[in-house]
C-alpha cells in the first residue's frame, strides 16, 4: 500500500454565473489591477489516500466526486494524483 496526495479542483461550469467571482473581480479593479479580465472562484479539496496504485486512486476519487464532492449539475472537477 502506498500513500497518495490527491488534489481535487471543483469549479462552477462555464455556463453558470459566478457572482462571487464577479465581486472579487470588481475588488481587484478597485485596487488598480485593471489587467484582470475574469475571476472564477472554486474549491480545492485535498485527500490523503492509501491504495495500491495511482490508477485505482484516480478511479475511486472520480467516483467520490460524482457522488459527493462535486455536484455534476453545476460543477466540473479535475483530479490530480501525486
Amino acid at each position, binding site marked *: 500500500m502506498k500513500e497518495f496526495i490527491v488534489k481535487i479542483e471543483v469549479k462552477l461550469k462555464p455556463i453558470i454565473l459566478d457572482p462571487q467571482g464577479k*465581486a472579487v473581480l470588481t475588488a481587484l479593479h478597485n485596487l488598480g489591477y485593471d489587467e484582470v479580465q475574469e475571476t472564477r472562484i472554486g474549491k480545492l479539496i485535498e485527500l490523503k489516500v492509501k491504495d495500491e496504485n495511482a490508477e485505482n486512486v484516480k478511479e475511486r476519487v472520480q467516483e467520490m466526486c460524482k457522488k459527493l464532492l462535486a455536484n455534476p449539475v*453545476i460543477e466540473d472537477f479535475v483530479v490530480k494524483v501525486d
Partner: protein
Amino acid sequence: MGIRGLKMPNFGVVVFPGSNCDHDCYHVIKHVFDQGCEFVWHEEKSLGGLNCVILPGGFSYGDYLRTGAIARFSPVMKAVEKFALSGGLVIGICNGFQILVEAGLLPGALMKNSSLKFVCKWVNIRVENNNTPFTHLMKMGDVLRIPIAHGDGNYFAPPDDIRDLNVVFRYCNRGGRITPESNPNGSIENIAGICNRQGNILGMMPHPERCSEELLGGEDGRLIFESVISWLERPESIREIKTYSRTKV
C-alpha cells in the same frame, strides 16, 4: 379521525443535525391543523405509517461542502427515497428542498444567492400548477405572500431541462407579474418551487410553516397544508399512491 371515517393523516418531520424549522413544522401540523405528527430522526431506516414526510429548513451538517450534500446520505434518506418512489407525499422546505435536489429526487441545483447575501423577507409567489396534492385548493395564478430566509436559494437547471420542469411556484410582484425585481435570489425563470413529474414530491424555498397563523403576520402558507390534508383524506389517494408506485420518478 379524518372525514369519511379514514384514519387521520400522519405527518413525519425529519430531524437532521442542524435542522432548525423542524419544531415550526411540527407545531403547525399538530397544533394549528390538529393532525397526527411525529419527529423522524435522521438515523431512522423506516417511515412506516406516515402519509406525508416533511424535510424542514435549517443548516443540516452546517451546510458543509454544499447545502444538503451531506444530509442526503443520512440513513433516513434511503427510506425517504423509497417512500417517494412508492408515491408517498414529500415536502422539502428551504434546506429540505436543497436536500431533495442533492438526492436527485428533484431536478436542478440550488446555488448561492446572486446577491451573495442571506435574504430574509416576505415575498410573493404565483401558483403555476394547481394540479398537485400540495396546491389543489388554490387557483392557477393565485398569489401567496410568504417568507423566505436563505443564502442558497438560487435555483438552476440546465437549459435543456427547463422546459420539462414541473414548476409549481414562481416569485412575482404583488399583482402576480413575474418580474426581475421580484426575484429575490437570482433563480432561473423566477422559480421558487417545483414538483417531480408525478407530482408527489414538492421542493420550495419559501416557508409555508412561518405563515400559517395570523399572529405571525400571514396565513397563506395554510393553503399548502390544507391541500395536503384534504388530498390525503380522499379515498382515491390510496389508489393513486399505488399507481405512482409503478412509475419511476
